[in-house]
């Protein structure tokens, strides 16, 4: 079921919500677990969703949770704010993708955990429109 787990991650999954350091302005994503002291230094911060392709591949043999989706494009995205994030590319074909291609975040279905599980939604990235 994993209900609590996916609910707990709703901020970063749905809104790309990371953290920003209150004094240095450094941004981190994924957000890290906060201790009381940490929470004073790092505030929630929503990233813009803009980024560039750092690298990518086409997955042809996926894990069980993603078997029905193959082939799919998996990428590492350098976000405009600095962090790199792992996510699928969508709305494009592999031959249209290149390192450094500008992309933007969209919300899509990540996986269906089956009859007794959740349909998990979250961020993917697509080529910047226009």
């Amino acid at each position, binding site marked *: 079921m994993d209900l609590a*787990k996916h609910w707990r*991650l709703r901020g970063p999954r749905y809104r790309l919500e990371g953290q920003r350091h209150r004094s240095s302005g450094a941004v981190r994503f*994924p957000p890290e677990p906060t201790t009381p002291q940490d929470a004073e230094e790092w505030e929630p911060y929503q990233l813009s969703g803009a980024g560039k392709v*750092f*690298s*990518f*591949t*086409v*997955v*042809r*043999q*996926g*894990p*069980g*949770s*993603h*078997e029905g*989706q193959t082939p*799919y494009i*998996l*990428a*590492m995205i350098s976000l405009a704010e600095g*962090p*790199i*994030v*792992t*996510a*699928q590319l969508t709305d494009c074909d*592999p031959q249209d993708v290149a*390192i450094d291609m500008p992309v933007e975040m969209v919300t899509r279905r*990540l*996986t269906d955990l089956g009859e007794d599980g959740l349909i*998990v939604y*979250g961020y*993917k990235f697509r080529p910047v429109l226009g």
Partner: protein
Amino acid sequence: MQSVYIVGTGHTPVAEHWNRTAVSLAVEALQGALGDIAANRLGALYIANALGSAIGVQAQLGAAIANAAGLRGIEAHTVEAGGASGGVALRQAYLAVASGAYDLVAVVGVEKVTDVLDGRLEAGLALALDSDWEGIHGATLTAQWAMLMRRYMHQYGVAAADFAPFPVNAHANGAANPSALYRFPINADKVRSATPVADPLVMLDTSTAADGAAVLILAGEQLARELPGPRIRVAGSAVATDTLALHSRPDPLWLEAAARSSAVALQGAGISISDVDVLEVTDPHAITAVLALESSGFAERGTMVNLARDGAIQPTGSLPVATAGGCKARGDTVGANGVYQVIELVQQLRGTAGKTQVQGARIAFAQCLGGIGATAATHVLIAE
């Protein structure tokens, strides 16, 4: 701290052992490793296993193997660190003997993967990645290495074909290993035209997970002197960790845990990198070996593919790797790989490695990685 020696090795062939359990494979390898040593002299078993729990084969392999081996009551437990499990278990066993807690222990690497279909196996392997931030997006180990390969090609201006010497060397060596999963040579043309599995990675540059068990017997100095045969000393031993998620690293092409564990193991052995005669690294794909070798200091960054093209990684070269076939041709036994690696190096140091023998090998280097190098275990072996 007392010196620690490897006094026995045993293994099963790497294969699809449809008719065998993990426990029966482990017991066979353990009996082979013990030889004439009485099993009841063992103080503990350190089981290296990555997937038993992850793919639902069996948890608590320590108790299961101890009982099946006729050692009921002995200390035994599983050490799990993904593909680094073998090296980490060796480290635990080494510490136990070095500290004087035990004089004789066994490292039992075992993996049983053929009881599940590909989807479950991939999911089990992917647990070595960060589940919440990589796995949920459909990342696999192979996909992660593929992305690093593409980035490496971009950064250093090399082509996919430039990586072919690694699987070609692995298969050439595996052909001479009676225990290897694949015992046939391949050439660069075949690699180039092979089916893609996760572009730019192709089938012939991707290891196949298979079943197998491999065992090392470790002894303290006094006991090692009583036993016959050449003594192989575990001269350096280190484990290091890095971020679980690949994307969290400031420089994804740099395997910091490999770098750190290598430096510590070499320093512990009192040798420098140029003293190493023969190596084993984690090599399910060429890019894995390339990044491990560069991060460990065997080559400048961006140069390892060129060194391999010039023959450095062959048994006759300056950096011989995968002399028993590596993960690619010997077969990928995941948590047991680190133990198979050391068995091959012990043969090299004893001068019994057959057709792939590195002449005059005296110092060996073994390194295994868990996940994308989130864990790295490095050992230095010296023949005395």
